[in-house]
């Protein structure tokens, strides 16, 4: 059988290098690589016959598994181990989609295009790696590999305060990832595992005492929580988004935030179910705080990107809530939400970028009534906003619906909190649309054209998928459920 | 208290006193004088400690060579030999630090090594036999150190002639 995952990694790696070296033709190389990536992901889906289930020792299995020895310390085996299950497969699909959409959207990037596209590809490479890595060190490696290109993307191509934002982003996430690595290693050593492979650690971690699990889970949670981000570790996100170039914002919201969710599921919940169960009340409290906070703060934002950034925080809070519910429905919802948010927030940040390109500002009071001048852009803004506020037939709805249903199952009347916040979310999107799209024309420069074809193409892909998966979410959910979300066997 | 102990006590007092004086007097040349006395006093202590060879060595190397070297240094770096040392860093902090070290050293020694046996005095031939036998590498290393320092020192000083 073809080592598909390694093939994809190799494609992306070679592609990234080629892009860096391609000079002014970088965008074509990037496009070819992205298409190849998408095709390979399609192959991956075609090849994916379902989740292999639990092994004899009740370790969750993975498809497309590959494992080669990498680093052997006398007391520790470190391997190159990769594999996928339903959860990672869906997120890989998201990666491929966002990559090609972002490449298209940034088609006319003029400032050092080869580095720009190379870094975009590198970010996607890292994300892909995170989603397939089944060895702690490999995982951490890809995890960090996402960080560096994003740091440069923000810092070099970003807005006026880009340096501050890049630094803040880098430091926040790096500190978190170090804590996360420490937590993972502590799991390994306290459980007495002699290998960093997921399956070995999984098996060994069954034997950890509940107290240890609880503490270790908290450490891991902190590591992932910053990436999520949850309140109060979220303040890097608005700054990073506001300053990042559009392509960076898209990947930041679409992929990087997902890493936190994925990491929490794969390396937190699956690895330390008992600790997770003990810490759930903390997770709930943080999740609710994040949901409420992200939404309420969104209400008062003037900058379009900041607004979307805070709404991202709100959505990721729901993801955390769904994960914390510890039910199969909750996990299904969490993964679906991550996918949905990836697509929708990507779309919204693209529109925010286009608004900025077209009108020279993203300040909501400064520009408004743009619909007559830029109908296509307005439509995109509207689709994105509506999807984000959970309108049915768009992708946000099935995700939020399952999440809320799962919340009801798990927490009963506390579901009121996200439900009420649903109204607030609707409020700030509607308010934004009212000011930006409707009303009398203001702040529109004379030469403002509607979006160019490439930006439209990038957004168009996402719009189409928003509708497609909104109507047929089972395309995704059938894949997601082929993963160990059916409930984990006890210790 | 036997004679040796009395001698030791006196010599010790002199050693501490001359060392202190050498650092406290303001005339640099006086410093050299006190240092010379200190080195001679030490060599006397070595004699008392059954190390006559060392005593002689001390006299030769320190009281002789090193003292002259230091004097040379003063002569080169000072316009007048009898220049006074101007600024000093005397103050409570250095004194306190040093006293603390001293107190630690003395106070910690509540317990003495038991069963110390006085050794016989060694003939210089014994010493040289050891130094060229088992202790050879030390000497070898010392030679390397000297090679290094001499070549380095010559290089550093030589520039002045150019």
């Amino acid at each position, binding site marked *: 059988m073809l080592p598909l995952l390694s093939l994809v990694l190799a494609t992306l790696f070679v592609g990234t290098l080629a892009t860096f070296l391609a000079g002014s033709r970088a965008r074509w190389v990037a496009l070819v690589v992205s298409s190849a990536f998408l095709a390979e992901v399609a192959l991956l889906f075609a090849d994916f016959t379902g989740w292999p289930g639990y092994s004899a020792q009740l370790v969750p299995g993975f498809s497309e598994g590959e494992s080669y020895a990498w680093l052997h310390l006398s007391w520790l085996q470190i391997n190159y181990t990769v594999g996928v299950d339903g959860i990672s497969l869906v997120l890989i699909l998201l990666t491929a989609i966002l990559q090609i959409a972002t490449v298209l959207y940034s088609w006319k990037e003029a400032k050092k295009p080869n580095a720009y596209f190379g870094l975009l590809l590198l970010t996607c490479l890292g994300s892909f790696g995170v989603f397939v890595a089944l060895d702690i060190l490999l995982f951490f490696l890809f995890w960090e590999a996402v960080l560096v290109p994003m740091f440069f993307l923000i810092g070099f191509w970003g807005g006026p305060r880009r340096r501050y934002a890049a630094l803040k982003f880098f430091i926040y996430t790096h500190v978190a990832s170090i804590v996360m690595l420490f937590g993972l290693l502590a799991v390994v050593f306290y459980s007495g595992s002699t290998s960093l492979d997921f399956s070995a650690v999984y098996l060994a971690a069954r034997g950890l005492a509940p107290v240890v699990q609880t503490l270790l889970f908290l450490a891991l949670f902190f590591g992932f929580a910053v990436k999520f981000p949850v309140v109060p570790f979220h303040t890097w996100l608005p700054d990073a988004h506001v300053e990042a170039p559009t392509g960076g914002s898209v990947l930041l919201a679409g992929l990087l935030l997902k890493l936190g969710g994925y990491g929490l599921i794969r390396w937190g919940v699956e690895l330390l179910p008992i600790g997770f169960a003990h810490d759930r009340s903390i997770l709930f409290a943080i999740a609710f705080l994040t949901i409420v906070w992200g939404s309420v703060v969104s209400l008062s934002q003037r900058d379009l990107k900041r607004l979307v950034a805070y709404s991202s925080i709100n959505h990721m809070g729901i993801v955390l809530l769904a994960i914390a519910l510890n039910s199969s429905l909750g996990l299904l919802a969490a993964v679906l939400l991550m996918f949905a948010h990836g697509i929708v927030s990507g779309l919204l940040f693209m529109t925010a970028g286009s608004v900025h390109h077209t009108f020279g500002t993203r300040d909501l009071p400064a520009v408004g009534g743009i619909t007559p001048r830029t109908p296509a852009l307005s439509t995109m803004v509207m689709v994105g906003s509506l999807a984000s506020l959970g309108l049915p037939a768009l992708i946000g709805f099935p995700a939020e*619906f*399952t999440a809320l249903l799962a919340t009801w199952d798990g927490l009963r009347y506390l*579901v*009121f909190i996200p439900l009420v916040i649903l*109204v607030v979310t609707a409020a700030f999107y509607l308010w934004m649309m009212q000011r930006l*799209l*409707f009303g009398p024309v203001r702040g529109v420069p004379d030469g403002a054209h509607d979006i160019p074809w490439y930006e439209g193409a990038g957004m168009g892909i996402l719009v189409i998928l928003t509708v497609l998966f909104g109507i047929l979410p089972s395309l995704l959910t059938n894949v997601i459920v082929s993963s160990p*979300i059916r*409930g984990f066997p006890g210790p | 208290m036997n004679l040796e102990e009395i001698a030791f006590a006196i010599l010790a007092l002199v050693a501490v006193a001359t060392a202190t004086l050498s650092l406290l007097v303001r005339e640099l040349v006086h410093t050299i004088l006190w240092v010379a006395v200190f080195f001679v006093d030490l060599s006397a202590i070595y004699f008392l400690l059954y190390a006559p060879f060392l005593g002689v060595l001390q006299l030769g190397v320190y009281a002789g060579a090193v003292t002259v070297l230091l004097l040379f240094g003063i002569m080169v770096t000072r316009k007048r030999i009898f220049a006074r040392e101007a600024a000093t860093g005397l103050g409570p902090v250095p004194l306190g630090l040093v006293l603390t070290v001293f107190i*630690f050293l003395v106070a910690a020694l509540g317990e003495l090594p038991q069963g110390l046996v006085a050794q016989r005095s060694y003939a210089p031939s014994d010493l040289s036999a050891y130094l060229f036998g088992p202790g050879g590498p030390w000497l070898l290393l010392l030679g390397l150190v000297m090679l290094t320092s001499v070549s380095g020192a010559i290089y550093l000083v030589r520039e002045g002639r150019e």
Partner: protein
Amino acid sequence: MAFGGVAMVLGVLLGIGEASSPGSYTNVQFTWLKLAPSPGPFPSGFELVMGTLVDPISALVLVVVTVVGFLVLLYSIGYMHHDRGLPRYYAELSLFLAAMSGLVISNNLLEFFLFWELVGLCSYLLIGFYYEKPSAASAAKEAFLVTRVGDVMFLLGIFLFFFVYATKGPAGTGGWAASGFVFVHGAAPFVPVGTGNATLLTIAGIMILGGAAGKSAQFPLHVWLPDAMEGPTTVSALIHAATMVAAGVYLLAVTSLFLGFTALDQTVIVAIGGFTAFFAATMALVHPDIKRVIAYSTVSQLGYMVLAVGAGFTMVGLFHLFTHAFFKALLFLAAGSVIHAVGTQDLFKMGGLRKKMRLTSAAFAIGGLALAGIPPFAGFWSKDDILSSVYSTLPSHPAYWPAFLLAFAAVFLTAYYIFRAWFLAFSGDKPRDPALEHAHEGPWVMAVPLVVLSAVAIGGGLLVYLPGFAGLLLHGGGTPGIPPTLSPTDLLLSTASVLLAVGGILLAWRLWGNGRVAPLPSSSAVRSVRQVLLARYGMKAAYDWIGTKGVYTLARGADFFDRFVIDGTVHGFERTFGGLSDRLRRIQTGVVSDYASYVVAGLIAVFALMLLLAPYLLSRLGGA
């Protein structure tokens, strides 16, 4: 247009077919989302499906939707011909019709909700059709938001029902969840079956009511509907009078048929319905805007329907929905015709239009008579049916009394305000505003719908006596509503209500007839009541205050906290380390003696560590 026509033909055919052979069809069905069996509340997993279910009640409403929809599309050709955004208009309207039809033929609550939101979206887009007008944009937002509150409650209601019935229900294997939560035509509602949690079910019912109240503009979520009149009048006719706002009633009907309400739910629904019927009518009494008067009347009429459904007379409520759709669409289209002609909505500028616009005037009068409940117009049959049905339950449900009385009193108010509008607009010699002299009828495409709708408004109520149509109503669900009868009790009640209505018309004629403009009474009490009514009892202002001042201030505060406290803490860390670094940096004085003292200090520190601290620590910690 053509699609609208085809849809109408299909819809009517479906209706006729259903009338001729009552039954249900479940045609299309595909899996939307599936959860494998897993521990938890859905032990055998669940499968959410999208499918269609055509049964008598959906056929009934489908007829309304398609017919009125077609007529409005037709009418729009004339009404909207000068508008720039015509393609957008038709696209959105078509999307609405599609979504509304989808809603009607949904076979489960989730799908219902999906289309429910879609029609809400269309409503939002169409209210904001003239988006350059800030008031339109604002009204659109308000409509979406207020209905969103209802939607959220609806969603929770869905969860509750799903949860309670997940393992119960008619499907047999694995409960309702496994069957995809689909409605099964002809089965008894769950509630009597449901041995489940009564409290949960009551709350579920209330939540569904909340959803319905949002969509159907029932108190206290009614505020958006009058503002929704910012949209084109055709939209008001179709969406905000005939179809979408009725979706809330339809939801209540569906719920009561397939799931059922508990007794407490019913009392609440009845109370809300009755109160809204009266409450909205009062606000219509004084409004100068012709469309808003009709809008308030819509709210009020929807209150009647809710009342009926709440009292258990589902089919009676739907019957009123049916007739109301036609005569209210008629009223709106007539009003639209007027507005099209005169370019204003202010009743006090109009007057004497009867002479210039005879057809419109007649149509409006027919609609008004139907609304007022004057026999034999359509509204009489259905409204009277509601009143008599509810009246019949009063002995067993004394709690319904207040609602019934309010609804009954509203009959008078209804007749008064609609004819006040008619007299103000059409009677008299000439318009009060001289600029309106050149008013004239619209083109034929606007006239045809008026004629058709007038016909239905006159005779629609009599359809009840058509066996096929009555069959639709009779076979609607497991608990048939009381069919219209002419029993003595009813006669008495009908007479009383007709007399009330006539009284209302007379009062309107007395005050406003023949182009009179009744002077404002000088009594301050009346003035202040008028002010309160015009200010909508202050509710709009209160909501605005909560929405802008309250929540926005909260948001600003949160943003401030976010920027300065949370981020400030982080920066505080940074500053602390920076300051520490700066302070520590100063020990690097550049003087070597100081460095030597650090060495000595370090030596002392090592002493202290080795001789004092480490032994102490180790003895405390118990050795290595």
